[in-house]
């Protein structure tokens, strides 16, 4: 069984990956823009926050700068696609690759440790909560605030224009929506959220590392698709809640898989488990509708 610490740890990283899933929801679902920039913008957010905190910045300001850096990375990807007409997937791979160098430059070395530095978590440890509960509570507040803001945005005139851009670009243009600008705004917003996730991850783990972005896109997608399998995303708010639930369920599933001695799995099997879970999340909803179809046909 899962220890209390492992359980809270899964919640903590689940909430952070929930933010990543929000970002991936905006790019993949709202804009229909397969964006792999996140593998670079996640460590970018971590690097910017870590370096600024080491430089004596207020940790919240440093986190804000990480969001802006992530947005800039997203904007580069979108502009490569919109202005230079590079295929969206390829544009995002180019930015992702470039960010590896950028992240090394920002940190000046492959990793920056934040041990003993003041982070966004520091003040909350004085409240008398258990050590491993603090990040969960803080990140939960952050996730809920972001969820409400995103939900309001998606219901706004601009948000609706963004949803139309992804769903039916020709119709969107005919309604006077500058679809190119909407893609830039959306992909920037998406990567801003991923930058935020990277910054929080670095602060809770106590370090930023240039390789910490590897596979973030898969984890985010796993969370998104898993969440959609659990909670049908018929409305924006349900889709956003599904992102968070999916991320937490994903982390818990991983923790269980690694903790269950009977299965004999080890930490190095993580990526394999991820791939299996994503496959299941993609296939299972289809199986469910097939079974439902068969049942209704028998009744009829």
């Amino acid at each position, binding site marked *: 069984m899962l220890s209390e610490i492992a359980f809270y740890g899964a919640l903590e990283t689940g909430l952070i990956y929930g933010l990543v899933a929000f970002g991936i929801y905006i790019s993949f679902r709202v804009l229909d823009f397969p964006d792999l920039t996140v593998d670079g913008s996640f460590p970018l957010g971590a690097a910017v926050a870590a370096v600024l905190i080491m430089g004596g910045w207020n940790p919240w300001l440093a986190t804000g700068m990480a969001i802006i850096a992530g947005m800039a990375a997203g904007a580069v990807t979108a502009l490569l696609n919109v202005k230079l007409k590079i295929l969206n997937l390829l544009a995002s791979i180019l930015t992702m690759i470039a960010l590896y160098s950028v992240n090394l430059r920002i940190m000046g070395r492959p990793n920056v440790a934040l041990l003993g530095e003041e982070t966004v978590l520091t003040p909350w440890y004085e409240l008398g909560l258990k050590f491993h509960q603090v990040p969960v509570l803080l990140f939960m507040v952050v996730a809920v605030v972001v969820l409400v803001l995103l939900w309001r945005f998606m219901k706004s005139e601009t948000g609706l224009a963004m949803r139309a851009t992804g769903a039916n670009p020709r119709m969107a243009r*005919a309604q*006077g929506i500058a679809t190119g600008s909407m893609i830039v705004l959306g992909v920037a917003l998406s990567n801003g959220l991923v930058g935020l996730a990277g910054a929080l991850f670095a602060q809770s783990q106590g370090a930023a590392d240039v390789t910490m972005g590897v596979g973030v896109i898969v984890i985010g997608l796993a969370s998104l698709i898993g969440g959609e399998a659990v909670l049908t995303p018929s409305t924006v708010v349900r889709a956003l809640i599904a992102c968070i639930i999916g991320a937490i369920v994903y982390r818990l599933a991983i923790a269980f898989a690694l903790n269950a001695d009977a299965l004999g799995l080890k930490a190095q099997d993580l990526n394999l488990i991820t791939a299996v879970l994503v496959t299941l999340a993609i296939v299972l909803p289809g199986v469910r509708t097939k079974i439902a179809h068969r049942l209704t046909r028998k009744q009829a």
Partner: protein
Amino acid sequence: MISATDLQLTFGKGTPLENPALRGMSLTVNQGEFVTVIGSNGAGKSTFLNALAGEVLVDSGKIVVDNQDVTRLPTHKRANRVARVFQDPLAGTCENLSIEENLALAIKRGQSRGLTSAVKKQYMKQFRDSLSSLNLGLENRLGDKMGLLSGGQRQAVSLLMASLTPSSILLLDEHTAALDPKTARFVLELTEHIIATQQLTALMVTHSMKQALEVGSRTVMLHQGQVVFDISGKERDGLEVKDLLGLFEKQRGLQVDDDSLLLG
């Protein structure tokens, strides 16, 4: 008023597939006119509409809408003046958005969009009133997803969306062609009603010569990227499909070889 002067447009220039779609196309549509446009496949009807809407930019020539030169403007910058209904009933609306969200998108056509809520309470009466004029019961289904509606219903809503805010010209691109005959008649009647009551200026491309003569106040025939004839008023009244064919053959010394024009 809109005027197009000497529009030239060639697709795939310099390639073996070079295709001149517009070859000196000129047309002026006055305020309040309802023009029907016919022509065989490849005559340049859809390209002309796309050029007016901004979906394609012409190689040369000039397009003026209400005294503003829009020739080089992209679609979204013309949207405040140009409203459009597509041939494909699925193209004019977003199926994943609700009916009220689609209408809310249309009510801001060509205007700047901010961060206030898109579906506002003050729109509701207008949305309900215009939807109830369709007699489809959609006024009680504002929250339903657009994808739940039939093709005809979606096309009717597309028409409403196009007429929700004022425009200088309404472009209808064979908007009844993909519907079954009964639904097509309903959408066509609705089109005539909306254009008449709101006194819209409209350009309707159709594949049917009969339809082209039955509705509207003026008929234009395109051939090989040009206007081959343009009739209105007394000259047009009482004209039948066979007269139109005769006119076409006389003008061009050509036989109409597109059966769908005759059968439609």
